[in-house]
């Protein structure tokens, strides 16, 4: 890709950075913008969850015995949806599903965001080092990456969940969810950095031969200058697209792990825990099944479309019909 793209539209693009150019194009794609607002909505909900929950008067942890019958099933139709419980109540306890969904957003986005941040950070640094230093360091980092990719990661995550969480606890990480979160994030980083690192390495290998880098070097620019002033500005678009594309994967992975019982532990509300619980009630409380599933679908779809929109905007070679 061109470091600065000048082929584009009729608009006056002189003096605009690739970032500004990309954003201008992104704003023109309607689907991408809608996706952005969907994602923004979820992020907003996650950040202000306690306030929203209080405003809507839906406590995710309060038990409501009156909305469930003697069998523990919701009394009303559609999982007992009502003004008090807009999305109904959880079978067994009568806890509000909307409240739990809102709090679950926090967990999902926290794991998604921190997981992506860590793996991207590690990936960029290692990719940069490999691309700039080349030689044995490059081979070493690349081989480690190959090994990490060769692991059956999901299997490993599940198999190691209990022993590793215990190990973390014995190392002084607070018991329970803190240890479980640490484990999940650590393992996501360990297996997640490789793709980012490969991408950055490839880009750096090609960029470093470019005239503007050569020029900077001939003026005696140090590594720091090269990295921060010459290389990174040209890498940002790719990094952002990559982040937007891997985030939904991590969000879905949280749900998968909690569903399989190696994620976070109850009574914390998480979408995966809700999904796992709701499956048991598919016959008696079908509405419940669709709520966490629907939310997950919406968020992951939002991120994917956002990533698509960003890619279309920042990669001029993708010549797609903008919606």
């Amino acid at each position, binding site marked *: 890709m061109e470091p600065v793209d000048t082929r584009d539209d009729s608009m006056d693009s002189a003096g605009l950075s690739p970032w500004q150019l990309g954003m201008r194009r992104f704003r023109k794609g309607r689907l991408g913008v809608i996706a952005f607002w969907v994602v923004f909505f979820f992020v907003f909900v996650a950040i202000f969850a306690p306030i929203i929950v209080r405003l809507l008067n839906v406590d995710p942890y309060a038990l409501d015995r009156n909305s469930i019958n003697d069998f*523990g099933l919701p009394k009303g139709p559609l999982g007992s949806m009502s003004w008090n419980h807009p999305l109904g109540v959880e079978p067994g306890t009568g806890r509000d599903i909307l409240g739990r969904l809102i709090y679950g957003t926090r967990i999902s986005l926290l794991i998604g965001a921190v997981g992506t941040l860590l793996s991207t950070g590690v990936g960029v640094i290692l990719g940069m080092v490999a691309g700039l230093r080349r030689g044995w360091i490059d081979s070493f980092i690349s081989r480690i990456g190959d090994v990490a990719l060769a692991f059956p990661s999901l299997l490993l995550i599940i198999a190691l969940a209990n022993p590793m969480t215990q190990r973390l606890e014995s190392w002084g990480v607070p018991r329970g969810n803190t240890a479980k979160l640490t484990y999940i994030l650590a393992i996501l980083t360990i297996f997640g950095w490789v793709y980012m690192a490969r991408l950055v390495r490839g880009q750096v290998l090609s960029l470093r031969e470019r005239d503007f880098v050569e020029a900077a070097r001939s003026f005696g620019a140090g590594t720091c200058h090269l990295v921060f002033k010459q290389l990174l500005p040209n890498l940002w678009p790719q990094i952002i697209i990559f982040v937007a594309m891997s985030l939904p994967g991590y969000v879905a992975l949280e749900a998968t792990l909690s569903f399989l019982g190696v994620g976070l532990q109850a009574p914390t509300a998480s979408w995966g825990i809700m999904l796992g619980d709701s499956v048991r009630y598919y016959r008696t409380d079908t509405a419940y099944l669709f709520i966490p599933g629907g939310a997950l679908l919406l968020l992951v779809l939002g991120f994917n479309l956002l990533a698509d929109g960003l890619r279309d905007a920042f990669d001029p070679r993708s010549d797609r019909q903008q919606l």
Partner: protein
Amino acid sequence: MKRNRIIAAIATAAILISACGGSGNGTTSGEESGGRSATADGIKDGGTLYVLTFQEGASNLDPQRVYTGAELGAYGSTYARTLTSYVPAAGKDGAGVEPDMATDLGTHSDDLKTWSFTLRDGVTWEDGTDVTCGDIAYGISRTFAAEVTAGEGPMYATTYLDIPEGDSDFGSAYPGPWLATADQQALFDKAVACDGKTITFSLKVPVADFAYTVSLLAFGPVPKAQDTADQYALKPFSNGPFKIESYEPGKEMVMVRNENWNPESDPVRKPHVDKIIWQYGLDEAVIDERMLADSGDDKNAIVYGGIQAENLQTVFGDDSLKDRRTDGFDGFVSYTMFNNETVNCIEVRQAIWLGLDREALRTAAGGPFTGEFAKSFVAPLLATDYAPAKLVDGLNEDGTPNLEAAKAALEKAKTSCPDVYAKATGDGLRFDHPDSDAWKKNIAIWIDSMKAVGVTIIDNPIEPSKYYATINGDRGDIMRSGWAADWANASTVIPELFGKGGGFNYTNNESDPNFAAFDEKVQSAKAETDRAKQATLWKELNQTIIDNVWAIPGSATKSQNLVGSNVRLGYQWLPFGWYNLGAIGLAG
């Protein structure tokens, strides 16, 4: 001992022998016995009966190693005959024993330490050879072989039989038939002596109901020539109306009729079907779905594992299923243990009990169908030893929390035991529980209702399969558990759960000043030969436990089942909490 199925994920149920007399509890309508499916209406002999289960296989097929209530009943009624057997009948009649391979219920000496039984004529193995007294003695001797039976089955042979103590794995001088020297074998042969068709047991303790003991499959015969040691669990030799044609864990087991079973020799079993096929490893939700649909072969199916709580409303809200469903106590009492060493403050324990929302816990499990609030650690079905205890003052009958009383108790703790009070209201008490689906919700209820009292709960979920092994070493402040007697005697409950050296006493109650007197009484109750006096002692001891709040009784739990529409004689067999498998017939 028996583990709760919710914990062990194995459907275990109890052997309960209730001397008749109503317990005044439970549903006693026709529904409990299963309506039409419990009668013999229109049975046509023949056909194939299916057993659907989520289990990956039999918990064990080796008679000396089976200890799961439902399976003891299922295997005993099909391929493993014993000296005595439970009466094949619905309701309380099923709790008595009658002679099976033996001609009578045995004769005993005055001191109840010598018991002898005489074998019937015509009792044969599946190859047509006679079942001999030696086969029975050999079978029992296998219990002592730790390397083969691994202590999985009941251990009454080692605790009752008059064999000196020694240094083999179970503390006996006899190490089982494989490792025994001639001298050691002689010790066993003296305790279990054969004279023609008469087998005589010498016991080191008086046992009044030994006729019940020998109904356990662990006291059943094994032909030495067929014994494949630990491999015997894959293909046990049959002496009953069915034999095992094939057994593939994770897939299925096929039981077919044993032509060499002689009906005249067997007053207990009246088989109807030709074949029984166990289908293993099915998804529980799929099982419920198939049973409700009731189509094809599923009309001839029964379920091992019960109805899932979330489907109870569907099953019990639909009158068209009236003839196909059963509901009854399974013999278990669930309870919550305190670590009385760390929570050594009765006021705090009382506050927790008073403030606990037991009603919400029961509703989360599926409501009143899942059990009744227990008033004793002894199940109501153990009628002789059961008496509802006087519970803590102020406890709400309907299971809802009494916050005022709970807070008042906690207030008292502030002065009487400030350390425990500070811990309970500050850092919090660690609650150990198996990390099961049910407990993901239960713990929320615990945390919520304790918060209302002012007590902090630290959640500590433990992988279900490692739960008991874990709390055996590292105990929290509060732990959950469940128990069923495997005997008509609370001696299999109170000493085990609360006595000194009780195999399953996790309560650390030895540190309580009231423990010494309690345990002394436990020891005298164990040695009491007058059954009525003994029952009084058990009731008093149960009251002592409750007065000291060493643990909180939860629910006397129930189980529900649904059978296919062609199934007949599918009654819940009281001693085992499941069907009398071998007696089931098919209509149409």
